[in-house]
């Protein structure tokens, strides 16, 4: 291969990387462009705070932002302790093949399609919640966040396990040498040293919970209201995009879904930035 091919291929590789990265910006640009009428006369800010009332000419997405936050934060409330417990089970409490089997099972869980959780949610969890809490249709914030917990936990567990295992062995050996137990080593050495990894796992899972569409769309009920209780029906930003989508695309009603897209883009980008900051800190920490 001569020099020209070498250079040509390098340029080809560079273009691929560069164009891919540019697509990320192009996506944002497209949404700004199509949602442009929203930004006229400082309307964007009011869209974030107003309610959704198309018949009154109000296309605010405040209820959807509230719904997204309620469902994803509640699912983190369930998923965080659950994942921490499971990660402790895999790395500390269980040994040998049990631990390996559990880990494999959790890894397999990351491959279960979202739509399956939604589907089973409709036919299994929704009736249960309805009977148990005697709550309307059973499609509510609680139902959706319970299913979402199952979706986000596996990856959170794997991140936690990883950050436990990254703590240098020598630190823990000291505890064992002075007669401490495995659990004491974990509680007093491993856990305090792995908090950056735990935060990273948490943040990434929150991003995933914010961005999931199908579970909320299928089992949260999709009522346009800021949920007042766990048993209220709610609509997330993602579900809103999927639902309003069918409408006429010149209308302001339709333009508002680009506001949802922009808010989702900014939220997930913010979380990615947080993770990058944390990983930078983590590297310093372990060095």
């Amino acid at each position, binding site marked *: 291969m001569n020099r020209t091919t070498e250079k040509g291929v390098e340029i080809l590789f560079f273009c691929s990387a560069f164009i891919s990265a540019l697509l990320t910006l192009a996506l944002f640009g497209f949404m700004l462009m199509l949602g442009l009428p929203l930004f006229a006369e400082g309307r964007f800010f009011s869209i974030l705070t107003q309610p959704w009332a198309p018949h009154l000419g109000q296309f605010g997405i405040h209820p959807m932002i509230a719904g997204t936050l309620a469902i994803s934060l509640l699912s983190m409330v369930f998923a965080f302790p659950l994942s921490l*417990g499971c990660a402790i089970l895999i790395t500390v409490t269980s040994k040998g093949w049990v631990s390996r089997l559990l880990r494999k099972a959790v890894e*397999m869980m990351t491959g279960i399609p979202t739509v399956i959780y939604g589907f089973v949610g409709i036919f299994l969890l929704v009736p249960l919640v309805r009977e148990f809490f005697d709550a309307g249709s059973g499609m509510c914030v609680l139902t959706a966040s319970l299913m979402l917990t199952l979706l986000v936990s596996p990856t959170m567990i794997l991140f936690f396990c990883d950050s436990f295992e990254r703590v240098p062995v020598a630190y823990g050996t000291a505890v064992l040498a002075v007669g401490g137990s495995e659990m004491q080593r974990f509680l007093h050495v491993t856990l305090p040293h792995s908090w950056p990894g735990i935060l990273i796992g948490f943040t990434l899972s929150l991003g995933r919970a914010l961005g999931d569409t199908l579970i909320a769309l299928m089992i949260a009920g999709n009522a346009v209201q800021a949920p007042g209780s766990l048993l209220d029906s709610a609509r997330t930003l993602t579900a809103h995009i*999927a639902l309003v989508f069918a409408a006429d695309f010149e209308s302001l009603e339709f333009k508002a879904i680009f506001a949802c897209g922009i808010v989702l883009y900014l939220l997930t980008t913010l979380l990615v930035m947080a993770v990058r900051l944390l990983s930078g800190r983590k590297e310093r920490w372990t060095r």
Partner: protein
Amino acid sequence: MRVLEQAVVHFSRLCGIILLGAVLTVIGYLFVHGWSSLGLSLIFGATPPLDALLMKRHVFNGLFPAVAGTLSLVALAICWAVPMGMAAGIYLAEYAGPKIKAILNLFFDIMAGLPSIVVGLFGFAVAVFLNRRFSGAIHPCLLISSMALAFLVLPYITRTTQMALEGLPLSARMTALSLGASRLQNIVRVLVPQSLSGIVSGIILAIGRCAEDTAVIMLTGVVASTGVPRSLLSHYEALPFYIYYISAQYTNSEELASGYGAAIILLCICLVLFLLAFAIRKRISYHALYRA
């Protein structure tokens, strides 16, 4: 102190039981309700399978169009994403200087974190844009969907390629170079073949993501019933969308049963792909897979 330690042990066991119990319930529930619907007639309806496969006759009451739609969608998306993703991964691992690398990494991180519905909205916006600017014949279709899906999985393929290459030991990196190979020869003949298991497992996982994703295709041209996709610019059916559609719109128990059947098929496809990726590489990089 003893009490706390004991409590943590019990708590961890309880968490394990809850998680495994919940997942086994989900999978068990599907199989209990969908087992009876599994069979050739679930896919081909009343049409003889061979006729359906040879496109001689249309399949009604069967999942064949949805399966065909999903397969063509995945194949197309992977066709777009693999060359681009691998090239970008190779650039990041082998050519990029530290500054450019940091900037590109940031963009790929953001890309990997984007919710799939936002990617779908982008695909739709592009379709609308092309429709207005160039030709009224362009509307949300198989081509647009597959490109949007390619965008969705591009960061996985880039990341797994990059990580596989960066993970190679220095000795593997230097041998061919010291024998006089050029940089490109070294990459094509030595580095990529050496890290192939990592790259391929990433591609398999990307296939799984393409097969299961519903949010992207919902906005970019999937419909509930249209038959086998006829061209790149036509509407199509897909398994995950069928499952979603049935859960909301089923009219009789037969349709519902086929929904369960479709869910089992999709679950099996995704789990088999996962096992395959495992078999190729012991520990997969779920870091690259992190997205909704």
